[in-house]
């Protein structure tokens, strides 16, 4: 029995009041480590601000972009962050529809990650524009000039898809949080009381609210899944719709979606371990849940590897000289170290997840997840840049490395994401309280069924069938 403890997703003896207490505690009194993290994030952001201000004033040449390298790290990092945003959809929407209740303690921060990585990703198309001050021309707004954006352009699709995704995922995050915000409202004081009162919209948990809440949540989940798939396939069509060798690949949409889920899962593991460590959430972010996430990651890693191989094979047997040249340049050319680094991080490292011992070892998992993310970032870079360096026209073959401005802004994007996330964990409950309670209730019912099927078949028998019993301390006091 004792041995089985570590295999449990959540302890069914957990008191509901305890759940409230534990989660609410995470929102109080930031510790030293928190402030250090905030300082690090601000430091990174300041780098990006310096880079961007310089680039804004002197032009894109500052980023060491050139002919033919018109895009570089900005677009690669943009795809990386868009990919990261698929984590929340995977955990909260797909697993919600599939009734996988182990997602419940960890989906909230994954959803927050979705929203924040979209907010980070959305910055990059703006940063990479030559005339940033005119970026609103991409949006279809009414003007008396009689001109509109070019609706054929995948970049306009991006603008549509990303703004839809950002709106939907932010609403999804917010709607899912309303019952928890009501709990926060009941316990908060000062400015927080006002904030939560406004945000919880007068939630009191009556049956009408719960019923509509469930329906809404399910419907939004159903819409979020095709949306997430379409967003990343639209991002992939930035490349797949072109005619350049290495970009015009038919398998790009599924490849991008797989890569997105992959990097999202890896990032979930990273943040899972960090949150568990910072907030002492061993009760909620259990090893068992980590294992399940890791298995999922492993499966997606294999899908990603497979799609990679398919791409190589189709290029190899496609007999297009230019395509083949780009592929060979990736293998053996100047970008080879990064390419093989990507293969190593993305296809070899995930085999660590196949071993139970490693899956249960937190420091290893931390290193592995960071390596996976690094691999996914390299993947995006290896999609964007080699094609630009080695396209059809031999006179335009060139290699160019990004300048400090690009690196600063890329680093700053991590700081920006981190800062948003750090603010989130202190202002909002990053573990879903009501769903943990549901999970506890569910587990307890299962456990009772296993112990005494007679009792379970007889709900009126007075057995403590729920997480609350009249003997709980919270009730005695009243």
């Amino acid at each position, binding site marked *: 029995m004792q041995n089985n403890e570590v295999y449990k997703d959540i302890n069914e003896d957990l*008191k*509901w*009041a305890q759940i409230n207490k534990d989660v609410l505690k995470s929102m109080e009194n930031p510790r030293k480590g928190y402030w250090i993290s905030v300082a690090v994030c601000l430091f990174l952001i300041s780098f990006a601000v310096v880079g961007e201000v310089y680039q804004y004033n002197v032009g894109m040449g500052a980023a060491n972009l050139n002919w033919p390298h018109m895009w570089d790290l900005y677009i690669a990092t943009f795809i990386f962050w868009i990919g990261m945003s698929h984590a929340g959809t995977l955990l909260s929407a797909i697993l919600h529809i599939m009734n996988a209740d182990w997602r419940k303690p960890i989906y909230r921060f994954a959803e927050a990650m979705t929203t924040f990585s979209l907010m980070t990703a959305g910055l990059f198309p703006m940063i990479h524009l030559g005339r940033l001050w005119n970026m609103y021309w991409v949006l*279809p707004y009414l003007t008396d000039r*009689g*001109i*509109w954006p070019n*609706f*054929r352009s995948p970049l306009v*699709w991006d603008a*549509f*898809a990303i703004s*839809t995704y950002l*709106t*939907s995922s932010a*609403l999804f995050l917010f709607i899912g949080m*309303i019952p928890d915000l009501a*709990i926060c409202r*009941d*316990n908060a004081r000062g400015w927080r009381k006002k904030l939560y009162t406004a945000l919880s*919209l*007068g*939630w*009191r*948990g*009556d*049956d*009408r*609210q*719960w*019923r*509509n*809440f*469930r*329906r*809404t949540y399910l*419907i*939004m989940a159903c*819409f979020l899944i*095709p*949306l997430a798939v*379409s967003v990343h396939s*639209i991002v992939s069509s930035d490349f797949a719709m072109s005619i350049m060798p290495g970009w015009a690949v038919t398998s790009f949409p599924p490849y991008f979606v797989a890569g997105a889920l992959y990097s999202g899962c890896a990032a979930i593991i990273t943040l899972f371990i960090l949150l568990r460590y910072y907030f002492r959430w061993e009760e909620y972010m259990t090893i068992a849940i980590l294992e399940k996430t890791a298995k999922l990651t492993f499966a997606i890693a294999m899908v990603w590897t497979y799609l990679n191989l398919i791409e190589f094979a189709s290029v190899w047997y496609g007999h297009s000289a230019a395509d083949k040249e780009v592929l060979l340049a990736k293998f053996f050319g100047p970008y080879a170290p990064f390419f093989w680094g990507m293969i190593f991080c993305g296809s070899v490292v995930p085999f660590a997840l196949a071993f139970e011992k490693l899956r249960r070892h937190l420091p290893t998992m931390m290193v592995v997840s960071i390596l996976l993310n690094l691999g996914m970032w390299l993947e995006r870079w290896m999609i964007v840049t080699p094609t630009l360096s080695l396209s059809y026209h031999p006179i335009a073959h060139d290699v160019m490395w990004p300048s400090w401005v690009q690196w600063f802004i890329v680093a700053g994007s991590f700081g920006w994401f981190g800062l948003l996330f750090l603010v989130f964990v202190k202002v909002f409950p990053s573990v879903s309280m*009501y*769903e943990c*309670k*549901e999970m506890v*209730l569910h587990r307890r019912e299962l456990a009772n069924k296993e112990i005494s099927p007679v009792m379970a078949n007889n*709900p*009126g028998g007075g057995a*403590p*069938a*729920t997480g*609350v*019993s*009249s003997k*709980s301390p*919270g*009730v005695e006091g*009243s």
Partner: protein
Amino acid sequence: MKKCRILGLFGNFDDAFAAIGDFKNKKVDGITVDDVTFLSPIEHPDIDDVLGPRPSVIPKVTLCGAAFGITFGFLFLASAQSNFLIQPQGGKPVVPLPSNIVLTYEMMILFSVLFTVVAFLITTRLFRKRKSLYSEKVGIDQVAIEFEVDEKYIDPIKGVFKDNHAVEVREEVQS
């Protein structure tokens, strides 16, 4: 005849379900299970069996949203494109269907989600003034049954609450 509100807090779901069962069995004349408002920290899986089916309009609104998204999205794009004076030139289609399908798809999802959220906010009556009969315990681990009835039903309801081990009973006379 004054309207009154009465709220009974229960320590667990079973007691509360038993109380609802009593109301269902007409223990109090003039009160049916449809008058029950059930407050809980989570949505219990059996709640529909206990309270009986209560309809929700949200899926229908979502359907409307999707239909609106498709029609509005496509008409908006088509009208924008056919007003776009430079586009018809060069042998390109005025209304390019492949890209419009992609964009209409996004618009459909956007409007479905927006309609759903708006319907949620309206049907749950979240923007109404908060009622005073609310226990913070509901947010933690207790469940409650609430009635909004005439004064004369107060005592029988209270009796049913007491019979089913209510932890606390509150009442309020509306002015």
